[in-house]
């Protein structure tokens, strides 16, 4: 049913072109068929993302633990997920005898369908959103993420297994605590942008790195980190993976699941990771735009040309621009996912009460202070409204002062420098670790010297 509502909104720039080529008229039958094809395509995209992320996660985990990770199936093990998928397809699909059979079978779909539906609002490029007119895009994704939780809770409950129920209950109380800081930190960003539409959010950040929303004021900058922590809890990622803490609850809510149904939970989890990364990319980190604002500048020119003459080179230019945009957007989202993996294999898991404490007593007040601060800040130092390159020249600081937004411009530049400094420190750290890791690995594999000879080996 959630799929139906996502299909409702199918759209693309390609669709009119296909119609023209086939010489067909757009009627209800065509639209339905087109939606089905688009849905199948998105299913493929999500599966591909999930499979890639699972392989990548295992690789990252391997390197962090001084081993290699999957390396047998395909070059550098890249086809490992495909092999695992085949195995899961062939496994027996078990349902416990004492389970609530109907709910047990329904739960994996209830977990996966909302994640699938959330993809309709993600802006992959200026013209590559499934539904660009969705004016509540950010809110829609938030809604889908909160519906996904229902599937997880039901899975645990319907399994009729004490470990699974513990997992489900942890998920329920974790959800109640993280959802409010998550929502409020999104509101801080949205307040600065003045829109909930994901495509619009992308367009207003097109003037280069200093127009990205995260650098608009210090409060949004901090809200990004609050959102990141809350989103870890939302994705059930370590250190907040209490619902499936495999060292205490067997496998948490999916203890009883096997085969394809089990893999649905993983598709949902990795899909949700990509969505959360996508929100952070689109809402805070400039969407599909590069740090220099070149793509935003190009888009304004290409769009102007396209409006005058929608043929030939102008279409090609717009399409190329969209393809580059997809590349940048996906790179940003995958970067966020990498940080999630990095944290997962670094941090130990807290207890459930510590998670609740962190979310309700630390993150929530922090988010509220940020919300108030952002409101006051905007009242004192107004943001520059409009779309860069269209309404103003983003790199011309003198123009900012002339228009009366000098303070905002200087703030954004200073914050950008801070952000770039932090980012390059982190990247330098990772590079250093990657470069020295090889030596450490060799040191670890050396045979350990014995302190003393074991008793049973001592000759009498």
């Amino acid at each position: 049913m959630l799929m139906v509502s996502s299909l409702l909104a199918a759209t693309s720039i390609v669709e009119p072109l296909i119609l023209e080529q086939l010489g067909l008229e757009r009627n209800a039958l065509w639209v339905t068929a087109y939606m089905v094809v688009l849905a199948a395509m998105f299913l493929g995209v999500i599966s591909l993302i999930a499979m890639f992320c699972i392989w990548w996660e295992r690789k990252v985990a391997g390197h962090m633990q001084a081993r290699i990770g999957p390396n047998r199936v395909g070059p550098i093990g890249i086809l490992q997920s495909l092999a695992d998928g085949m195995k899961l397809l062939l496994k027996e699909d078990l349902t416990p005898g004492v389970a609530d059979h109907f709910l047990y079978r329904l739960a994996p779909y209830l977990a996966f369908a909302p994640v699938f539906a959330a993809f309709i609002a993600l802006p992959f490029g200026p013209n590559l959103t499934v539904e660009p007119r969705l004016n509540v895009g950010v809110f829609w994704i938030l809604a889908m993420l909160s519906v996904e939780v229902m599937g997880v809770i039901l899975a645990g409950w319907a399994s009729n297994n004490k470990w699974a129920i513990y997992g489900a209950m942890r998920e329920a109380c974790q959800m109640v605590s993280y959802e409010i800081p998550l929502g409020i930190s999104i509101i801080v960003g949205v307040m600065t942008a003045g829109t909930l539409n994901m495509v619009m959010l992308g367009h207003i950040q097109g003037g280069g790195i200093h127009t990205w929303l995260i650098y608009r004021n210090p409060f949004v900058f901090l809200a990004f980190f609050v959102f990141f922590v809350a989103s870890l809890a939302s994705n059930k990622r370590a250190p907040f993976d209490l619902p499936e803490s495999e060292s205490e609850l067997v496998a948490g809510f999916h203890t009883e699941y096997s085969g394809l149904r089990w893999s649905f939970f993983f598709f949902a989890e990795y899909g949700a990771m990509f969505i959360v990364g996508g929100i952070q990319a689109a809402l805070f980190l400039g969407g599909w735009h590069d740090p220099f604002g070149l793509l935003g500048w190009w888009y304004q020119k290409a769009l102007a040309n396209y409006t005058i003459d929608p043929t030939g080179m102008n279409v090609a230019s717009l399409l190329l621009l969209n393809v580059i945009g997809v590349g940048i957007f996906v790179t940003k989202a995958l970067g966020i996912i990498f940080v999630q993996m990095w944290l997962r294999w670094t941090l130990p898991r807290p207890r459930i009460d510590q998670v609740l404490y962190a979310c309700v007593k630390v993150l929530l007040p922090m988010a509220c202070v940020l919300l108030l601060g952002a409101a006051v800040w905007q009242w004192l130092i107004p943001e520059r409204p409009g779309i860069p390159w269209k309404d103003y020249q983003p790199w011309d600081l003198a123009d900012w002062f002339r228009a009366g937004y000098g303070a905002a411009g200087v703030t954004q530049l200073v914050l950008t420098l801070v952000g770039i400094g932090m980012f390059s420190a982190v990247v330098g750290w990772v590079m250093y670790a990657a470069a020295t890791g090889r030596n450490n690995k060799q040191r670890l594999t050396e045979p350990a010297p014995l302190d003393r000879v074991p008793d049973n080996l001592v000759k009498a």
Partner: protein
Amino acid sequence: MMGAILGQGGVELTDAGTVSAVLFYVFALLTGGAALAVVFSRNIVRTAVALLFTLAGVAGLYFLLSAEFLAAVQLVVYAGGTLILIVFGVMLTSKSQFARFEPKLGEVIVAMSVGVILLFALILGIFHTTFASNALSLDEYPVAKLGQVLLGDYLVPFELISVLLLVVMIGAAYLAKGRRRDEPRTEKPTLSRAARQWS
């Protein structure tokens, strides 16, 4: 303005009427069928799941009416928040795994009469209202408008509702706390010093 900026977006249907009619019936069936399941299912958790589908169906109807904000709120607040709290409550309180409703005859009669009265009131209300044929023009940005109206013209009712919610929350916290205070302590902890330190 929005259309120009967002560029080539959206499938504009030539026979939009048919598609939205079909979708209306799909969502209406979903809502109605799931609502019947809510009424007739005896298992509390299954009832909650059926309620999820009802709420999602209503959200779909909101989407068909271009009330996307309302639809998203419906999903966040009811499907995502309230329902999960219901299931959580059931998990914490029910003694057996699959708690069942066993309503008494009196309860059934009261509930049915309330339902019938409500149904008649709604039908009467619908027949006595004259609906504007083309109420809204959707070329404005409706969510921003909604926000301005809520925090402008209707600020007082909006704040009153939030105060009401606050009162409910404080009341619930008070009730939960008060009951715990009355409980007599049955047994003394008999843990060793080391265990107490780590518990």
